[in-house]
């Protein structure tokens, strides 16, 4: 329908008012905050000093490294398991709806509930998984061990995200018509050949989208870290988002925290730009 004067603008006004106040304005304001220092209630302009401080602190690079390690393990393992599950669900065996619902339940738990359950499962003396898995890893106490604690958070993140990633890949697999597979089978292609020459090229774009979405999630993941390890032991799981939370909202270094937020904003913006480009160019839904 054609525009009728101001009517459409009136309709979109509430949406833009709320989103403008809660999302746009604070994002712009974080750029302003990042150029200031807040000491004893005094706000002073410090230029780029907060950014200088970030780039000169060893803690930042260590957090960056931890974020990358966490992201690498979480994204690659989630992708692997999700792919296998999606291939299984795509066989359309029938009566698998209940399995689908079941594996989605972790996705419907909040980060904090997931975190508390995982922390409890790995508590020394009380945790079932601590008792079960510890002999396999040289009898360590997972939550007291730098890599062990990171492993628990990675495991919890995979557990919660697996079904979501699987669903996206499954949607990609279902766009491939069964005729393609039948033709290949008639030509005598083996299962592996079918996967490598037919399935993979056709789901590659969807997979790329999933990788980017999971990477975005990895960069911003905070709740699971706060509830399972709270950055510990020591600072062994203090990823960038946890560092940002602590600086801004525990130590109240707003300027420094906001500068970290600006850095994170650009990391996100780059990932999001790649994600949107991939969707535009590769996915035809």
């Amino acid at each position: 329908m054609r525009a009728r004067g101001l009517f459409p603008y009136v309709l979109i006004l509430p949406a833009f008012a709320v989103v403008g106040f809660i999302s746009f304005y604070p994002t712009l304001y974080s750029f302003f905050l990042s150029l200031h220092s807040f000491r004893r209630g005094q706000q002073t302009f410090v230029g780029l000093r907060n950014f200088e401080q970030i780039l000169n602190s060893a803690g930042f690079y260590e957090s960056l490294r931890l974020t990358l390690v966490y992201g690498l393990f979480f994204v690659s393992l989630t992708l692997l398991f999700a792919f296998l599950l999606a291939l299984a669900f795509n066989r359309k065996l029938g009566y698998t709806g209940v399995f689908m619902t079941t594996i989605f339940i972790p996705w419907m738990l909040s980060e904090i509930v997931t975190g508390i359950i995982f922390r409890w499962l790995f508590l020394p003396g009380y945790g079932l998984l601590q008792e079960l898995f510890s002999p396999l890893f040289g009898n360590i106490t997972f939550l007291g061990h730098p890599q062990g604690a990171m492993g628990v958070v990675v495991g919890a993140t995979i557990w919660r995200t697996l079904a979501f990633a699987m669903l996206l890949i499954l949607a990609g697999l279902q766009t491939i018509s069964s005729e393609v597979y039948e033709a290949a089978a008639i030509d005598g292609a083996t299962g592996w050949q079918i996967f490598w020459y037919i399935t993979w090229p056709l789901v590659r774009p969807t997979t790329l989208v999933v990788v980017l979405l999971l990477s975005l999630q990895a960069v911003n993941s905070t709740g699971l870290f706060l509830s399972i390890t709270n950055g510990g032991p020591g600072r062994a799981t203090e990823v960038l988002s946890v560092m940002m939370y602590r600086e801004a909202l525990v130590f109240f270094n707003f300027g420094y925290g906001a500068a970290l937020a600006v850095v994170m904003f650009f990391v996100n913006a780059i990932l999001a730009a790649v994600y949107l480009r991939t969707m535009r160019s590769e996915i035809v839904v």
Partner: protein
Amino acid sequence: MAVISTQAPSSVARLTLRQRSNVVLFLTLALVSLIVIFPVIYAIFTSFKPRGFGLARDLLAGGFYLGNYELLLSTPRFVRQIFNSFVMSFGGGVITTTAAAMAGYAFGRFSFRGRTVLLSILLAVMMLPGLTNLIPLYKIASDLGLRDTYLIMILVYAAYGIPFGTWVMVGFFRSIPTDLEEAAKVDGATPFQAFWLVVLPLAAPGLTAVFITNFVYNWNDFLAALVLLSSTAMKTAMVGLFDFQNQLTGNNNELLIAACVLIMLPGVVLFVLFRNAFLRGMLEGALKG
């Protein structure tokens, strides 16, 4: 799995192989589902054990104890925080659904100047990271005296839900034919009346989907509530749970886990009841934006 019997007899040998592999696959999926859901089931069983029971190697040991739930439901702080969660999630859902219905109608039905750009801007908000946004918002809300109020949380949840809700509603309104509005217009209805009285009732399934998914998302939110709420009386159940975990002393995990089970219920139940709305929403949100 009975579909296979309709095939030609010449390929029986190959089909039985496929059939056998299907059985293996089916059992594998069953096993994987069981492993995935096990922590939840184990948590539910543990929540019915007396406090101080400790590591349960046997699911049924310790009997069927209701004391954890009784204690939680008679703790004013816990009930109050559940109530807070409900008010904020519900309020956020109402504003999200209303604003998304209006904006979705405008974007889905009318062509107006700036339409494409405005829609892209609104959808781009979905890519803004939560915590990055919450740090400046904490400062803004503090300066305006809005921190630790229902209002700020309802607005935050609405802002999180509106972009995606609008996108769902755009698709929904496009699937409803325009004839009805034309007829309403002929009968002398104003554009707003046509929208409110004719189109909106037809879009009820879309509105329900937007409301339910947003409600669950809000219910499960942890970070925004953690940052913006500070008093015990205003905190949501999720933040209360986090405090509870940090304050817990001694061997009282059973109580903490019982609280987890109660708090996870709304999300899980609504998901099971409205499964398709959730799954469709996830797909559209991720692959069609």
